[in-house]
């Protein structure tokens, strides 16, 4: 068995440290938001996990295209890794969002574009895994997975736009806010925590992604060894 690369080991430790620091910053360092109070602290992780989920989602769609063009199984392994990480982080995002929404909007769930799109995206992933589970031939499984990841990646932004045709109450954090949306303002310290959380989750994403790809490669190796023995 190939030993774990040193860089990956460094990333493992870095992720743990980042997570601890981000937790400290979010829970202790960041000032309490005036309107929403303590619960606003969940927002830093909410954004962090959402960012990672989105990243994995975009990766999986692009990797789907790469697989369909190259037909090289290694891209399928990477694609599955991206989808798996995304499905977990999107789930965390939705749960954190609900925790935030309860005091902020006085409801666990609203049919806001972002929330709804996140939920639908989560369902696309579940469907993705159900599709893969139903196919025996690895090449066909990889091809169908790639086509479906591509379709999902294209439909998600359109779903978002479609739901946006209805009114939204989700605050816009960065960039231009619509006139009908409340804008959340951040102090300097909050910004530090916000960007550190983004950085921390990016590191965690890279680490998990790398480890998951490695796991996929090892699984493939085990299959190959099994065939040799038989």
């Amino acid at each position, binding site marked *: 068995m190939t030993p774990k690369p040193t860089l990956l080991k460094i990333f493992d430790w870095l992720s743990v440290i980042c997570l601890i620091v981000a937790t400290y910053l979010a829970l202790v360092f960041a000032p309490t938001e005036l309107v929403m109070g303590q619960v606003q602290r969940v927002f830093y992780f909410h954004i962090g996990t959402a960012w990672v989920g989105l990243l994995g989602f975009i990766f999986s769609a692009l990797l789907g295209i790469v697989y369909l063009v190259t037909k090289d*199984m290694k891209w399928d392994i990477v694609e599955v890794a991206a989808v798996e990480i995304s499905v977990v982080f999107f789930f965390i995002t939705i749960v954190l969002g609900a925790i935030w929404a309860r005091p902020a909007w006085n409801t666990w769930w609203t049919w806001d574009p972002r929330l709804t799109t996140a939920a639908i995206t989560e369902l696309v992933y579940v469907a993705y895994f159900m599709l893969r589970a139903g196919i025996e*031939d*690895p*090449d066909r499984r990889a091809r169908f997975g790639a086509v479906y990841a591509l379709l999902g990646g294209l439909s998600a932004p359109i779903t978002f736009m479609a739901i946006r045709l209805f009114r939204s109450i989700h605050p816009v954090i960065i960039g231009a806010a619509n006139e009908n949306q409340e804008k959340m303002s951040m102090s300097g310290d909050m910004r530090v925590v916000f960007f550190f959380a983004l950085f921390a989750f990016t590191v965690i994403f890279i680490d998990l992604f790398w480890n998951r790809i490695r796991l996929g490669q090892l699984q*493939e190796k085990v*299959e*190959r060894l099994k*065939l040799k023995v038989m």
Partner: protein
Amino acid sequence: MIEVKKLVKRFGMKAVLRGLDFNVQPGEFVALLGPNGAGKTTFLRILASLSRPSLGDVNVAGYRLPNQAAQVRARLGVVSHLPLLYADLTAEENLDFYARMYGIPDAPSRMTEVLQMVGLEARRRDLVRTFSRGMQQRLAIGRAVLHDPEVMLFDEPYTGLDQDASSMLDEVLKSVAAQGRTVVMTSHDLARSEDLATRFDVLSRGVIVASASRESLGNANLLTFYKQALAA
């Protein structure tokens, strides 16, 4: 007519065909024998352009697969153990559909010709749903020869047929072969193959392990040859 060099087909990491070499001269009728799971159907699906080779060269009727698949398909007729026919269409409508898919000129007269050949002229306006298994299989052959292909592939054509239906199928297959076509047939029924084929190849564990023409086999028993090939 068919040239296959070092063909490898993998499903995932499992290699079904492992460096298979196979050549067929025009007009030959090759029976491809082998136990279940030897890779016969996989091999035939690759020749039929339905499955892509993982490695190796495959040429059928002078065209390379998979790049020139469309040219190969126009010169190829396939009969499998599934009928490839629509149950809710009549015999005639099924043939008419495939005639359109192959762009056959003067389809009505060709259809009549084919229906006579497979002995279903009287049932041309009946739904395929009402046909017996044997009749469906004969119509499937009619469908496969409709565009007058140079190469024909039969994948276990006798599956599910009774004695009478098999004998009738024999006649049809003989007349198909008699028209100078190149035929490759997989079968585990040695007796049927013995009557029809001019050459016998044994496929085992993804490669051709033995090949003998009818002449070289002489008076020797096909079953003996087959068993020796598998034991080697």
